């Protein structure tokens, strides 16, 4: 048999039909649904008199525009249009008989955090969601990617997706990370190197010692941002850490089924002589704590660098850099560490897991945020929140001056009331620094949770190593 990549193996195990031109019907094992990209899909089903083909493989949770403040279960505390979307999801979940975690359920949270937490996401699966950060689930060695609303409807109706195979890219991070460097710095550094379109047409497999050393939480952070690098999906081969994480989760297999699953999961790795269409290699030791300076996730620099000038770039990027710098209100040559910030946001599907909260709390222990700073922590799920309270992290955040919120997407995309004001500058642990992403005119710098916590303390972009 010819050697295969991990992606090839998962793909081959899910082709339900292949047409002569290579267009495939890919069978979908898990379909995650949230309130923003699904109403039109359910509406389409109703109009055509169709049902959900596999309701037991379909899981819904509201996350994008639910408020993260107390009293949110009362629709009166939501804006009218948010309440309509959440109510539509409630109704659709009920009418079509799919699994559902409403805001009143402690298991509610960001869809990409809830899936793995509940054991819905398992190695070797195909996972889709009407959300680009579905790539997160690739950390389990599952083929996971975002789809549009028409495709959501297609999966609901047929449990398949029309797909052509992508190319294989290997991103290898060798060696070990230096102190203060995290999964977020890896994933941002990869995008800084390949650019936001570098992965277009590819599925990335992340490998190498520095990736193997990451916890499952860290691996999810890395895969989460595969999409910012333009890739269809990011994958990491499952190993003992993966099995350990999955074992005992509510929807993970048990007993003999667990053993059978393990037998298959252990075959899920790229063969030594598999073919790669592209290979990127980065030394773990070369990665520094990084921040973004512009309005594209590829605008990445080590925290010790200075704001670049448009002339540092060529082609269309020079104009884009000029526009970014104007928007961000940054002068070329300014040391990044001199950039003062107004707000800190810790959360999102990139960095809203327990390990992220631990890393931030570690920096904040016994410290206060800078006077006048607005800072919030939004745990990725109700269970992450409960665990953080149990571990005493919530107290550290509160004592430091952070707001301690309920689970949701919150200021990652500011569809709920958590938004930046025009010109307000934010240190954020989320994944997108686009113009207006966190509120019209808002300025976003992406970084790791520890770096965001450090910025909260000093009131400026800060090298976390100074506070360690």
């Amino acid at each position: 048999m010819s050697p295969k990549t991990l992606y090839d193996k998962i793909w081959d195990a899910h082709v339900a039909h292949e047409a002569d031109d290579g267009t495939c019907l890919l069978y979908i094992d898990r379909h995650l649904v949230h309130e923003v990209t699904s109403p039109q899909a359910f509406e389409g089903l109703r109009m055509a008199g169709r049902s959900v083909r596999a309701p037991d493989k379909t899981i819904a949770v509201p996350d994008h525009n639910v408020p993260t403040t107390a009293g949110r279960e009362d629709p009166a505390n939501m804006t009218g249009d948010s309440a309509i979307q959440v109510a539509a999801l409630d109704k659709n979940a009920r009418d079509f008989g799919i699994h559902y975690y409403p805001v009143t359920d402690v298991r509610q949270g960001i869809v990409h955090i809830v899936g793995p937490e509940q054991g819905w996401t398992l190695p070797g699966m195909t996972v889709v969601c009407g959300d680009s950060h579905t790539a997160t689930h690739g950390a389990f060695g599952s083929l996971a990617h975002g789809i549009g609303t028409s495709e959501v409807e297609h999966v609901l109706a047929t449990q398949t997706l029309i797909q052509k195979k992508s190319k294989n890219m290997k991103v290898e991070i060798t060696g070990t990370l230096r102190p203060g460097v995290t999964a977020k710095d890896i994933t941002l550094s990869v995008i800084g190197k390949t650019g936001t379109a570098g992965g277009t047409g590819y599925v990335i497999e992340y490998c190498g010692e520095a990736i193997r050393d990451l916890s499952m939480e860290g691996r999810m952070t890395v895969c989460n941002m595969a999409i910012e690098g333009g890739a269809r999906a990011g994958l990491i081969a499952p190993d003992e850490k993966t099995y350990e994480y999955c074992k005992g989760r509510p929807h993970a297999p048990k007993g003999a089924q667990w053993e059978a699953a393990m037998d298959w999961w252990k075959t899920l790795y790229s063969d030594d002589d598999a073919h790669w269409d592209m290979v990127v290699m980065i030394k773990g030791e070369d990665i520094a704590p990084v921040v973004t300076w512009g309005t594209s996730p590829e605008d990445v620099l080590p925290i010790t660098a200075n704001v670049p000038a448009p002339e540092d770039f060529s082609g269309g990027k020079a104009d884009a850099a000029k526009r970014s710098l104007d928007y961000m209100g940054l002068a070329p040559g300014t040391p990044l560490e001199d950039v003062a910030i107004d707000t800190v946001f810790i959360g999102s599907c990139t960095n809203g897991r327990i390990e992220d909260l631990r890393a931030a709390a570690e920096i904040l222990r016994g410290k206060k945020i800078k006077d006048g700073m607005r800072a919030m922590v939004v745990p990725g799920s109700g269970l992450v929140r409960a665990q953080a309270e149990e571990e005493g992290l919530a107290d550290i955040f509160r004592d430091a001056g952070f707001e301690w919120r309920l689970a949701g997407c919150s200021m990652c995309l500011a569809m709920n009331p958590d938004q930046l004001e025009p010109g307000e500058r934010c240190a954020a642990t989320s994944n997108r620094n686009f113009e207006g992403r966190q509120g019209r005119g808002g300025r976003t710098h992406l970084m790791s949770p520890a770096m965001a916590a450090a910025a909260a303390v000093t009131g400026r972009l800060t090298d976390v190593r100074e506070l360690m």
Partner: protein
Amino acid sequence: MDKFTTLTGVAAPMPLINVDTDMIIPKQFLKTIKRSGLGKNLFDEMRFDDDGAEIPDFVLNKPQYRSAEILVAGDNFGCGSSREHAPWAIKDFGIRCVIAPSFADIFFNNCFKNGILPIALPQETVDILMKDAEKGSNARMTIDLEAQTITTSEGEAITFEVDPFKKHCLLEGLDDIGLTMEKSTNIDSFESSAAQSRPWV
């Protein structure tokens, strides 16, 4: 789905790279549960100021481009979120074809599902079309999907590539779900064999 066969119309030049879906349709307009009506908010934050007044410099506000049906843009168009509201807004505005050196994957697929033709061409070719588009409303381009050609206002014909299956669906206005349901026996048999080999799923 609406068919796409040929289109002759005004092309608006937008020489920006990395136009993301947050720019195309900002999130405050994602709270709809309908597919229609988003065209008035296409590129909202670039098109209107804080008071809702038009920003005259923005290309789609210029008199010659207000009824553009084609958009010529820079590299990596449609990057960012998977929101299908982006193609819905583009279509609702009246644009049926976007030409750029490259597109983000999900956006590219979403276009086809909504009767919009995205065309990826080498940078040099896009530069030629960008120049043509900059001539304003008298410069109308013609796109012929069957023949896979773009004809500039000067009469220059440029050929483009398109996936044969996607082309077929656009030309015929075919609905993917209907097509897939014709293969339901394949799906049934896949499901029963998967139930044997991977029963835990």
